[in-house]
């Protein structure tokens, strides 16, 4: 039981870390990150 508690604490500590750690390197708004490439072949032509 002792090892289970230790393992559970380690796991929950990591989950807690994921919650508070930064979620994005770029932090770019969605509209600015849109793919600039043409959407269709006809647009290329």
């Amino acid at each position, binding site marked *: 039981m002792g*090892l*289970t508690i*230790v*393992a559970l604490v*380690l796991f929950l500590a*990591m989950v807690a*870390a*994921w919650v508070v*750690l930064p979620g994005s*390197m770029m932090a770019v708004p969605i509209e600015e990150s849109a793919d600039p490439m043409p959407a269709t072949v006809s647009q290329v032509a």
Partner: protein
Amino acid sequence: MNAINAGDTAWMLASSALVMLMTPGLALFYGGLVRQKNVLSTIMHSFFMLGLISVFWVLIGYSLAFGPTVGGIIGNLDWVGLNGVGLEPNPDYAATIPHQAFMIFQLMFAVITPALISGAFAERKRFKSFVLFSLLWSLLVYVPVAHWVWAVGGWIRVLGALDFAGGTVVHITSGVSALVCALVMGKRVGYGSEPMEPHNITMTVLGAGILWFGWFGFNAGSALGANGLATAAFVNTHIAAAMAALAWVTASWIRHGRPSVVGGAAGAVAGLVGITPAAGFVTPMSALIIGFLAGVGCFIAVEVFVRGRVDDALDVFGVHGVGGIIGALATGIFATTKVNPAGFDGLLYGNPRQLAIQALAVVVVAGYAATVTFVLLKLVNAAFGIRVSSSEEHSGLDVSQHGEVAYQS
């Protein structure tokens, strides 16, 4: 005469195939981490071992590693050329499978071990020197250590050290030797002053996945039968890798502010290394903690102590050396005879002596591997030169050593 068990034999042949696949998996894992101009040479460092060490093993390596002992130091020559290694079981090693099945399983371990070292000297080692070094290293480091730890009468085995699937024999020998290689060969041209980013992380993750898959044969196959012990090793292997991957990603997220994909792959491998000596001796919860220790411990070793100081190009020491040491010591802490009556209890189960024995085995094997590797590097360097010229290094080893390129533009 011992009877051959069909289930055990099927499992051991399948496990041998799984371990075989680890070497191409390692080739992809390492190949993705190097620059584009060196991917073929890096892959070749692993793939070539499948040929070289397989032939070496059946001719003489197996006899020296597992043959009848000479003073606990080395096997004799009774089984040279597989003489006497037939289809009847050898009860000293595996009483329910053909002796050749045990031999081929061990062959796959011998193949991948020198391939692991190649990550330390990636992007700068002369191919012919690599071939000679790998052959001599297998003969003078892998074979004796395998005998000491695993062979009947081997002196470390007699001492009582536990190594279920090769934490000491495979990972400490290769990891410590890798560190010596990196120190002796010196840094790559431009190391620290120009970017040396992985050229294909998808390849690396695929390689890590293949390694993880093959590791089930490596560890669960080391039970040498299709039984409960194999199941315990299988379960422990998976959960240690899973926990280590989470731990490494978390550590890199905290340190660098991003959950690294390469870190996830490296973490899984660190966990697999860490659980290797313990896989058949510990409970699943112990495996989980070992995975965590391996993930965080190897991350710290790579990021804090090695990188920037030593050009261990693909972190072989940080992952395999440190992971192997963590696993060997953790076996001395978490081992329990409730999982494997053939083993011993560890510190946590009232036997502190086991931890001392594990530590002694680590020190002796690491010291021996480091010393012999150093001497071999000096000898090979005197014979051929171990390092390519700086112009060849600039051109890349794919062209300068093999006359081929990986990708046509």
